[in-house]
């Protein structure tokens, strides 16, 4: 344990500010508003808690890592804010139930508010957070992590709400079943709960987690902050860092929203501006921005990242803050290779989201310098 602590680096309030932006970008509109999470993380730091991020390679093969995050509708997490110790209650209940001691906490989903939850819970528990996650972005469902895709069984798991209710999911026959049952339970608990999954071994995590997620998200946030300070184009800074493309600029002319099976499903119509004048674009939203079409043609599709930014500030806009008349830039960022295997595409490819007619054509991968 002592060597794990030494390998970790400590987060400052400035890192949390950068993480808010970076997690927002990687959230592709979903994963909950990182602002609320940032405030909670900041309050935890100010209360004297220490947040440490542990490089993945510092993890021992036999170490037990618990991945956790919020589950529910973003709109609700924005209004019915958490009690605050849901994650800690999950972790402790899971350790007690399975009689083990966690060496570190891990992140389910680096995109959105779920980037913050592991840091807050780990800080309260006196543990580090491993520098990796299960998505490298945000996805709407739990079975969509690389952990689940590559064979980890996420049950037994524990779900907690602000009231103090603790629910244990003993066994799910598939990861999708776990998701379905958890989703039903979230609604009963008021629509925004916290869930900790069964522990993974260090060996599994090092092989199948998306590596370096916190470093990446904080670096991305810093790139935007620095570009804005230097009055440079933050959109170009993001593309440069992540090997992405600026695919559209426009004004939102309509948003249809409806609920389907517990998800906020929406369609945004965008009218082109600047160099895109005369073009019409369309984004399909299911908690995250999933498909980007220009003039009817699919240009970017999940699992690659469709990122929506405020055209001027370069700050990410979450799906629930999207409004009529907003001026936005759309970016396409390539996802990690772990999300592009046949196994992965079966779970998080276009067909898995109800678009069997769309064939996934990967964006050119990020160039490694």
């Amino acid at each position, binding site marked *: 344990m002592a060597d794990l602590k030494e390998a970790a680096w400590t987060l400052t309030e400035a890192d949390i500010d950068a993480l808010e932006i970076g997690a927002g970008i990687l959230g592709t509109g979903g994963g909950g508003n990182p*602002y609320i999470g940032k405030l909670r993380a900041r309050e935890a730091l100010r209360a004297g808690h220490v947040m440490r991020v542990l490089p993945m390679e510092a993890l021992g093969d036999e170490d037990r890592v618990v991945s956790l995050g919020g589950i529910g509708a973003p*709109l609700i997490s924005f209004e*019915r804010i958490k009690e*605050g*110790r849901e994650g800690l209650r999950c972790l402790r209940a899971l350790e007690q139930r399975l009689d083990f001691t966690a060496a570190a906490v891990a992140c389910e989903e680096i995109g959105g508010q779920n980037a913050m939850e592991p840091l807050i819970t780990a800080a309260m528990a006196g543990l580090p957070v491993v520098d990796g996650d299960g998505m490298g972005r945000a996805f709407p469902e739990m079975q969509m992590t690389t952990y689940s895709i590559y064979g980890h069984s996420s049950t037994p798991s524990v779900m907690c709400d602000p009231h103090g209710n603790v629910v244990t999911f003993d066994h799910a026959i598939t990861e999708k079943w776990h998701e379905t049952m958890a989703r039903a339970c979230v609604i009963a608990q008021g629509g925004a709960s916290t869930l900790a999954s069964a522990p993974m071994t260090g060996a599994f995590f090092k092989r199948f987690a998306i590596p370096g997620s916190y470093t990446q998200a904080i670096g991305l946030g810093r790139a935007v902050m620095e570009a804005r300070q230097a009055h440079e184009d933050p959109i170009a800074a993001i593309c440069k860092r992540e090997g992405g493309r600026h695919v559209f600029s426009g004004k939102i002319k309509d948003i249809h929203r409806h*609920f389907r099976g517990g998800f906020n499903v929406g369609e945004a119509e965008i009218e082109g501006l600047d160099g895109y004048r005369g073009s019409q674009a369309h984004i399909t939203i299911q908690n995250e921005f999933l498909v980007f079409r220009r003039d009817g043609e699919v240009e970017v599709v999940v699992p690659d990242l469709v990122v929506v930014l405020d055209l001027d500030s370069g700050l990410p*806009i979450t799906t629930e*803050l999207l409004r009529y008349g*907003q001026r936005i830039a759309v970016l396409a960022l390539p996802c990690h290779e772990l999300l592009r295997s046949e196994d992965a595409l079966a779970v998080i490819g276009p067909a898995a989201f109800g678009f069997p007619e769309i064939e996934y054509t990967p964006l050119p991968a990020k160039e490694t310098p």
Partner: protein
Amino acid sequence: MVLRLGIDVGGTNTDAVILRDREVLAGVKRSTTEDVMSGISQALEAVIAEAGVERDAIDVTMLGTTHFTNAVIERRALDPVAAIRLGLPATACLPPMVDWPEDLRAEVGGHAYMVRGGFEFDGREIAALDEAEIRRIGSEITEKGIRAAAISSVFSPINREMEERARDILREVCPDLPVVLSSEIGRIGLLERESAAIMNASLLSLSAQTVDAFDRALAEAGLNCPFFVTQNDGTLMGADTVRRFPVLTFASGPTNSMRGAAFLTGVKDAIVIDIGGTTTDVGALQHGFPRQASTVVDVGGVRTNFRMPDVFSVGLGGGSLVQGSPEDIQVGPKSVGYRLTKEARVFGGDTLTTTDIAVASGMAEVGNAEAVADIDPALIAAAKEKIAAILEAAVERSRVSPDPIPVIAVGGGSILAPDRIGDLEVLRPENFAVANAVGAAIAQISGEVDRIFALEGRTREDCLAEAEREASESAVASGATRETLAVIEREDVPLAYLPGNATRIHVKVVGEMGAFQDG
């Protein structure tokens, strides 16, 4: 024919204009006074005299003010507020005002209370309202001399009953306490809505005094026409509304100056620079309307979810200090502010300001030009270059395309603007100095619908169309002309998992004020 009186009460100046239909008959600028009222009276008398119209011929008065925004920004004249949130055990990790700047929180007393109560998204109670705790807070409010309360319940935009119940209990304990409910002000998003409610509560004494001062100034000037105040989206509200909801005036200043600039020039797409004494506000006009900020907007360091123009401020104005040498010149952000007419060289003072540079270089004729005749021409050139560079950077930030749209310079300090900024032509309309007051005078009438529709058996489009029709009728009933109506807000939030597929629809329609019926 319609005669409108537009007044803009800023931090430094109080401007007044009289418009006959689309013609500006007169425009004057006077200093804002400590009591607000005498500054308005002076401006009123001057503009009526200059326009040469009969007082009782004036049909309507529109007033724009940055008074309430400035109070928050400058942290003054704010009442201590009891910020009461109904939501425990949820929300405990982030108490009210958690994201406010420390000094502003201290200014309103930092009285944050979290109480059991609030609703879940589906209408269940998070907890029953802790009525005993509300009563206890009531006694504490009395003991501590807290002047107002703001009550915010989780999910009150969907169900405001608990906020109302808490208010009624509080009033039993403190009968005269002004109470603001978050559901009256904002939408989903607890922290932003709660913050707006708290700021609003802290401004209630100031708004009562200010509206009284407006009333008295108008009555003493013998004006008996209806009087409206402009909101942040460029539309009007009645005096009673501003008394209860002063936060709705936030950012109305930039909105008025941009709409005034569009009106005075007839240009619909432009960058507007409003140069005051200390700062320059820069924003973009699109189709005659200020471009709206798409992210949350800070007011005095607090996040709000009001609809506001996207305005960028830089520290350059007519009173900005000019310091250093031609090789190393500094212009602003320090300014002599409202003391310009005493401290600038051309007005007999000994501080070198940007106004002195404008006079010395022949760009403007104010004060005594001889007082600046001895300034080193190299210093003048360097200062002019610096001013142009500051403006160019600000304009570039607001520019949205390479199209060569004009820059419209308004505000008292616009004598500083060169004839071109970068590759863009600068327009300086007549009456540029009082564009704010013109913007107030031409403010629009709005109609709004914000309620829950059941989608059962009908489409979303049907419901939106019905809401739009209702909002339009309400705008027309308030005096808008039908041909000018435009939708500025259109939002629907499905109320998740509710039976009957309910959705909350918010539509706001605006239009130009039509002719008044005689009598």
